[in-house]
């Protein structure tokens, strides 16, 4: 069985703040990390590998420095990795990203594809389902548990707003996973050695056999028109005095609002 895991290297957005005076992002010292949801996808793949002996290949699309993210997954236990990188991919929206990943995955071969439910920088949750559509395979999003897996089918729990569904699918299938699915393992010493030594195979636009008009900015139906800092229009009311006086006034206001 072949499992392909798609990961993304992202800036740790929890560390990013906006400077209200200049409306610019304060990114000083913000580290690049593997998208947290994706580490759960890698772990889910490794758990299936532990049970079935499947081969786990981790891929990422990004600039050359995304190689670091792939090495981390080798340290966790991935068998193989691919860096899908080409200047032609720059500026890709989710459509063009999914198209490039589909082309690469199709070359690599797969029975199960795993993705995190979304990346924390874009938060779109679109790439997984779009890849499945391109490959013409079913997908199940928001998977919180793999109940059973065989050569031909899989049964999982899918998180919904009001609980969960137990869903079965034939293979091949693509799953996107939520954090509740597992706790990602720490890299082993042996894994770290392997990660250090590993030669990262790069796939460019020719290697994946993509058409140039479908990748990067040119292949992207959506465009970023502009970005801006969120504005705040608030009817602000001032509380004054000592802390106790302020709390007094606030509790009175709560009374006016008929909360007490």
């Amino acid at each position, binding site marked *: 069985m072949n499992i392909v895991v798609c990961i993304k290297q992202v800036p740790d957005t929890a560390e990013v703040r906006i400077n209200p005076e200049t409306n610019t992002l304060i990114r000083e010292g913000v580290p690049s990390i593997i998208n947290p949801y994706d580490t759960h996808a890698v772990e889910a793949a490794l758990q299936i590998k532990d049970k079935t002996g499947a081969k786990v290949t981790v891929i990422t699309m*990004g600039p050359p420095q995304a190689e670091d993210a792939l090495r981390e997954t080798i340290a966790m236990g991935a068998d193989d990795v691919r860096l899908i990188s080409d200047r032609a991919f720059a500026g890709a929206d989710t459509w063009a990203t999914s198209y490039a990943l589909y082309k690469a995955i199709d070359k690599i071969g797969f029975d199960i594809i795993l993705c995190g439910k979304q990346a924390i920088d874009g938060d779109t949750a679109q790439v997984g389902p779009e890849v499945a559509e391109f490959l013409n395979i079913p997908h199940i999003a928001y998977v919180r548990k793999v109940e059973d897996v065989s050569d031909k089918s899989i049964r999982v729990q899918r*998180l919904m707003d009001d*609980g969960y569904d*137990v869903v*079965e699918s034939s293979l091949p299938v693509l799953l996107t996973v939520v954090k509740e699915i597992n706790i990602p393992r720490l890299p082993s010493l042996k894994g770290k050695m392997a990660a250090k030594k590993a030669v990262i195979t790069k796939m460019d636009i020719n290697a994946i056999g993509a058409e140039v008009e479908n990748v990067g900015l040119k292949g992207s*139906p959506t465009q970023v028109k*502009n970005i801006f800092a969120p504005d705040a229009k608030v009817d*602000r009311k001032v509380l004054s005095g000592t802390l106790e006086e302020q709390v007094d006034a606030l509790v009175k206001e709560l009374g006016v609002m008929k909360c007490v």
Partner: protein
Amino acid sequence: MRIEVRSEKCVGCQVCIDSCPYTAIVMKDDKAFINEYCQFCRACVSVCPEGAIIEIAEEGDKVKPADISDYKGVWVFAEQRHGYIASVAFELLGVGRKLADARKTTLSAVLFGSSENEAKELVKWGADRVYFCGDAIFKDFNDEPCSELLSRLISEHKPEIVLAGATPIGRSFIPRVAAKLKTGLTADCTSLEIDAETGNLLQVRPAFGGNIMATILCPNNRPQIATVRPRVMKRGEYVSDRSGEIIKVESGNLLCRTKVVETVTEESSCKVNLQEAEVIVSGGRGLGDAKGFKLLEELAGLLDGTLGSSRAAVDEGWIAYSHQVGQTGKTVCPKIYIACGISGAVQHLVGMSSSDVIIAINKNQEAPIFNVATYGIVGDLYDVVPMMIKKLKEAKA
């Protein structure tokens, strides 16, 4: 197109590096250099004091525009669960009506599963027309039949705008529709408007973990598809005698390789019920530990409210994800939102800033939460909250 730094003009001030939301600019030989992370947002172009960063058109930039002139009308995908239409559908009809009016066109809803009676409700909430398919295949949610039938209807009727809820259902299958039709999809929009000049849909969404907002366009492809989170848009007007057309759709042979074998409703997630609560008391990193939520729970209890949380507190493991408010959690608009020890990252603000009254309690007077707060108290929440509890108890007695 490419964005390029003209190195002879660059003075190495690094202002552009700070402006870039995608970490796409690095220093090379004391000059700025734009790498593959570039998303062409042009933030750097506008901040460069030397005018050294420029946009260069390239051969082959011009995408041959698809023929989009015969796409007309606004559609809302009305999702249902257990036969009931999700409330987000009525909210989408509210904003959909405005968009349709701005484009001088019609508003249609699409309903798969559920019943004809429910389809009529969509008319009362503002739809001129409802495409309804009540076939048994839609009883449970499976991605493939939904995406296949919706794509087929879109190809047949060519709407220019399609809206869906950014729910586990909408966020799961709508991307397949966008992939199939080769068109743009913008997730989690917080504002949707028509550009008066071009007629394009201006789709505003939080980007980059919610630290900034981005306006997204889909200029050359149709339909323009957007998802909107529940509780972000206001419902339209309910008119019980509004008339509209119900068009029954045959599903035909739809491919479905997944099967829902069991549906489990979990009690715990209902108890939180953030989206229905009138008062929410929320805690963030400033609580310091899980025990802080016990204190907030007491305050919430006195106000007949419920507990919310920032992503930081959930990530720390102090409270369950079901309490999370914000871009990656729930969007809420209670009458009163009390934020305790929450700094106010945009990721959080987009989930609660439409609350009627916001009360912020934070030690740091620079915290961005104060920018959206109706009432702000600068102080230690462990001083302020117990004081509030005491005074509320006195007031009640």
